[in-house]
């Protein structure tokens, strides 16, 4: 899609618009040829008025712009005060703003990249209505989403891409949701992750009597509501669901990063009321964030600094003992199989997988009782992935409770003892034992199981 919208150049093949082969070398030239991509995160100028936001990059005088915008807004049913500041637009309105930007450029094709991932369900419904209306007026629309229900709901034709290949392409009425799920899974899904661990040993499930290391009850916030569950020592609890279903927000609320969250969190029986990440760490609860560049790693500093950032008080009294620090760093480099020339190597120069391991080491250095792993294998290579899986197993063997979030459902199914599935900000299902299959988790994630049961 970035190629079609002119951000990247075309490597091979032909791009035709209205029957003519075209070359697009910038977003601007794509706009001129009639293609506009509504980005996943709309470009809003928070302090400009809505009208000005619409006009950026166009040369109409304000009065004419207003005239041109008004009928478009009416058509879309976009009820907005044009003099309001951009900052006050909701994400749904920001998306409409991007649509109007496209319409103002008289485009024939609108591309929506995951438009619903940040929307509430009410907001998404409104968006679909508008998309249908545009389509009925002759607009070509490409809708990218991995929310299957939505794709089924709005599309006329569906194509499924897997690993850069079109594996399914047909009219919507000829496709069932289950076909889609099957098409999206790798052919040998059941054996995908780790052959040796294929038969999940039941004995690994800890006995039900042990007291939970983590109890969450009635936790609610902006992105999710009424989450309750408990985690036992040595257990891997999977948390499945689609992007935007509220999993990351739930984790952030658990470790005290959301001041507005309500509900209780207990670690080893102790109620952590005024939580902060620091307090949670002291009680043995640690979170490994999803976005490691933004929240996990100190890119410009030696790798070992990320590993020891949370445990500096253990490295001597008045002065940090650099030998101790180096020893601690090296012990994790060895145990996690981190590939670096020296522990003093700048973290930013490591590969993605090794960066992730450094972040993991930083969490493990605190000797946690509970680890929340948010997308621990995103964007890392296969061998690093195996190392992460091995790490999870060794943690549980040591009696640590692990909450595992992953968008790769096979991974969740294969590694977890139990799986909670989140949908629309709620935990909708708990799957364990023989119910814990890839198919069930997938369907529940897309909200299908919920409707069926």
């Amino acid at each position: 899609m970035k190629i079609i919208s002119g951000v990247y150049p075309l490597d091979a093949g032909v791009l035709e618009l209205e029957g003519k082969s075209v070359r697009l070398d910038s977003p601007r030239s794509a706009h001129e040829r009639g293609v506009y991509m509504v980005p996943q995160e709309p470009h809003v100028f928070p302090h400009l008025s809505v009208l000005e936001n619409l006009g950026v990059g166009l040369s109409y005088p304000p009065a004419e712009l207003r005239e041109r915008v008004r009928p478009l807004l009416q058509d879309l049913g976009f009820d907005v005060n044009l003099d309001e500041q951009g900052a006050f637009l909701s994400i749904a309105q920001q998306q409409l703003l991007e649509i109007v930007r496209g319409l103002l450029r008289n485009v024939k094709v609108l591309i929506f990249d995951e438009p619903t991932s940040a929307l509430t369900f009410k907001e998404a419904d409104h968006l679909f209505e508008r998309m249908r209306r545009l389509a009925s007026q002759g607009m070509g629309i490409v809708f990218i989403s991995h929310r299957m229900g939505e794709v089924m709901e709005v599309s006329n034709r569906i194509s499924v891409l897997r690993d850069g290949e079109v594996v399914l392409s047909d009219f919507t009425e000829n496709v069932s949701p289950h076909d889609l799920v099957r098409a999206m899974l790798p052919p040998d899904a059941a054996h995908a992750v780790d052959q040796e661990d294929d038969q999940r040993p039941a004995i690994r499930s800890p006995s039900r009597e042990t007291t939970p290391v983590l109890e969450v009850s009635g936790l609610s916030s902006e992105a999710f509501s009424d989450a309750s569950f408990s985690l036992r020592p040595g257990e891997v609890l999977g948390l499945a669901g689609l992007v935007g279903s509220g999993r990351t927000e739930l984790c952030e609320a658990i470790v005290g990063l959301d001041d507005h969250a309500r509900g209780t969190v207990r670690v080893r029986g102790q109620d952590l009321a005024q939580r902060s990440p620091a307090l949670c760490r002291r009680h043995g609860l640690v979170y490994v964030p999803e976005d490691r560049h933004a929240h996990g790693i100190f890119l410009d500093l030696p790798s070992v600094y990320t590993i020891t950032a949370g445990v500096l008080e253990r490295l001597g009294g008045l002065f940090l003992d650099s030998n101790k620090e180096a020893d601690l760093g090296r012990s994790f480099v060895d145990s996690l199989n981190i590939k670096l020339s020296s522990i003093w190597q700048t973290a930013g120069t490591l590969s993605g997988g090794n960066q992730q391991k450094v972040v993991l080491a930083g969490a493990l250095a605190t000797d946690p009782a509970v680890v929340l792993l948010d997308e621990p294998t995103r964007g890392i290579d296969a061998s690093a992935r195996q190392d992460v899986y091995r790490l999870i197993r060794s943690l549980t063997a040591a009696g640590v409770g692990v909450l595992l979030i992953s968008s790769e459902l096979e991974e969740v199914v294969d590694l977890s003892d139990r799986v909670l599935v989140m949908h629309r900000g709620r935990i909708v299902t708990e799957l364990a034992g023989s119910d814990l299959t890839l198919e069930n988790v997938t369907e529940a994630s897309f909200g299908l199981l919920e409707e069926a049961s």
Partner: protein
Amino acid sequence: MNWTRYLRTWEFALAVLLVLEIVVLGVINPVFFNLENLLYSTLDFTHILFAALPLTLVIITAGIDISGVSIMGLASITLGLVWVAGVNVFVALAVALLVGVLAGAFNGVFVSRTDVNPLVITLGTLFMFAGLAQGMPALLDKLGFKAYGSAGLAAYQYEGITGLPESFIMLTEGTVGIVPYPFIAVLLFALVLSLLLHRTRFGRYLYLIGVNPKAAIYSGVPIRRVLVWAYVLSGFGAALAGVMLTSYFTSARADLGGDALLPIITAVVLGGADILGGSGTILGTLLAGMILGFLRQGLLAIGVTNDLIQVVVGGLLISAMAAKQLIHVYGEYRLKRWALSKKEGR
């Protein structure tokens, strides 16, 4: 084990530059080869170092504190007023330092508790502290307290609070052998700050906050407390500078240090600290401050005017930063070329 690593550091380059500078200045004017003279001339810029060294810590956190130049005057006038009130001058000195600490704490609390840009906050306190320093004597005088010292208002306006005891003046006039007390003090201060920055948990936290404040929070760094202490140290350093200047000029004045902002920030930035946070060392700031200080002394000695020196210092600051940027851009360019050639090679 790997000592060649140190040869490639910025601090080493600065050290070489410092030696070169002294040699060149000495060849032009042999006075510079007289160690006693050289050391004595540090008195003219020790106050810059006192303020710049702890400011390095603040800049490492991606913050900035421009109020230090006002804290200098505030500390100076506090010392003078407390002394005029009949208190022992060294107790007055302690009170002045305490005022610096409190001023720094005010900055720190404001910075760490709000999302307001530190530049705006310390700009506000720059005005506020300067205003307090200017207004306090007048207010006390109005309240019937002879705040201007024995010589009265006219003399105060001209030369500040004078007549400070000899023992206090000796703080800057005294020497150990041929080394002036203030220079020893600033080296000790640098040593303490250096240990603090490079060897303690607090110092590590400063870097972590500067590089990635979000990740620091996720890692459980007590970010607010650390920030407050960084600004407190900056205020304390500025107060030390103010006290030192008071002794050096033998008078307590509200406007001491008013023109020090440019050299202070130049020293920190030239010393290798990134204004965007995450890098910088105490040694770098110390060396850069000394290079700038001796440069000034040297140029003055060969008859260059103060004004031209200002131009040179400004030009030096800009060229150093521009060079840093160019090296960075060139590095990225080479990295891209390398990546592309690797791709094509396959």
